[in-house]
């Protein structure tokens, strides 16, 4: 594994190995000395062309706990805002002698493109509406810690699927791990062409949340990405909540203790009611702490071993 650009890069064995490593990394969070020397002397750059708090700081903490030097570059205030091309920015940054790039970009395929330009390990931390593989890994890892094997578990993913890279990475990974996935969205937020893809990728689609919720073993609520919507996807936020929000009433339809995930940041009261976000079965904070462990595992497997391994 040289890069992590897409869930397609991973075999089931790779995922199992990453989860096992993450479980060990997880323990570091509870130690008084939160430091492992495995990436000492390695440099990782977080190259973020889109806003992000949790993903960027999660990668930063992951790198630092493994003793790598981590530098954050965000598009605002960088030369990208002065008109430098993506290629020049990336080549400039890698010419400083880095070992890994963690990239977030608004264009789908940006991480893939960058990996072809440079010789260092590239981790896709979200590219447009394409993929966000570490988010899918941490979601599946969180759920497998809670549920055990995901084989034949019914996972329901709800929300703005059209704009969601998290959904795309998640259906691929959950299918790889044997889960049954149903994705639910209003017709306007269901990606076009999803029918053919769902048949091939082994998930089902639905417009009716109330119909699928009672059989769910886990629910994953996605954020309504208002910044990516140029109008017209649903009449009012209120109407979205009535049709597709995880409201207090819907919470009661779930089997007891069904884990509730949300990749954050949450729009409380829009796609998820406070009662659901703060429920005992809510995994939201577990996802955050798992995120650090998974990213440590990913950085470790990409950067610790011999070069060109």
């Amino acid at each position, binding site marked *: 594994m040289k890069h992590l650009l897409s869930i397609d890069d991973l075999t089931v064995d790779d995922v199992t190995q990453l989860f096992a490593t993450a479980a060990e990394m997880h323990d570091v969070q509870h130690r008084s000395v939160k430091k492992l020397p*495995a990436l000492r002397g390695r440099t990782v750059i977080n190259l973020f062309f889109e806003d992000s708090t949790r993903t960027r700081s999660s990668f930063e903490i992951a790198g630092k706990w493994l003793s790598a030097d981590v530098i954050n570059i965000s598009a605002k205030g960088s030369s990208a805002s002065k008109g430098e091309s993506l290629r020049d920015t990336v080549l400039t940054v890698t010419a400083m002698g880095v070992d890994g790039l963690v990239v977030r970009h608004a264009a789908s395929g940006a991480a893939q493109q960058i990996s072809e330009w440079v010789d260092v390990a590239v981790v896709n931390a979200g590219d447009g509406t394409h993929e966000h593989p570490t988010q899918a890994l941490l979601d599946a890892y969180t759920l497998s810690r809670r549920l055990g094997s995901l084989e034949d578990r019914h996972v329901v993913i709800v929300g703005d699927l059209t704009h969601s890279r998290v959904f795309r990475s998640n259906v691929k990974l959950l299918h790889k791990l044997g889960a049954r996935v149903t994705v639910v969205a209003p017709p306007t937020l269901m990606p076009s062409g999803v029918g053919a893809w769902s048949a091939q990728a082994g998930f089902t689609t639905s417009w009716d949340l109330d119909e699928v919720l009672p059989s769910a073993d886990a629910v994953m609520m996605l954020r309504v990405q208002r910044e990516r919507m140029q109008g017209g996807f649903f009449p009012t936020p209120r109407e979205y909540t009535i049709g597709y929000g995880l409201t207090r009433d819907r919470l009661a339809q779930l089997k007891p203790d069904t884990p509730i995930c949300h990749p954050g940041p949450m729009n409380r009261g829009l796609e998820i009611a406070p009662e659901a976000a703060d429920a005992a079965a809510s995994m939201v904070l577990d996802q955050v702490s798992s995120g650090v462990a998974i990213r440590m595992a990913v950085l470790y497997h990409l950067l610790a*071993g011999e070069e060109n*391994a």
Partner: protein
Amino acid sequence: MPPSPDGDRGRAVLDAQDIHRALTRISHEILERNRGAEDLLLLGLPTRGVPLARRIAERIGEVEGHVPEIGALDVTLYRDDLRQHPTRGPQRTEIPGGAVDGKTVVLVDDVLYSGRTIRAALDALADHGRPDAVRLAVLVDRGHRELPIRADHVGKNLPSARTERVMVRLEETDGYDEVRIADTVAPATEERP
């Protein structure tokens, strides 16, 4: 005896009885040195140090009526040769109670060779706290140290050539107890110094 991937290559240097006796002696030595089993923590180094630590703890329990705490300390992330090999996932680390402060830690491993594993273990241990003392017990010391490290308790001193392989097989991990020494045909894989 179940067939092993190494077949009958080389010669057996310790059989099950020898291993049993060596561990019994080590258990008594540890007790004598520590004046009892109080505040004793046996940390096995995965893979085969872990069952060895468990056996020593049981032996100590039989003698003293008090089984010392046992755990596992994985050193993968602390190795100095990470860059020379494809990445290996870490194995389980388990420190009972999460702390080593105030304890006498006995590190337990199967083979002592270059000493680099123990160097890594000492670093790993320091990140878990500050033990009162750290000692080292090994089933086999085959020499060829590359660092100023020695064992406090040794099951068997086994003079060996660098080209030879020492293979420890244990009931818990391999189905039978035996230590063999053999000429290396291909570079040893599982037993990196």
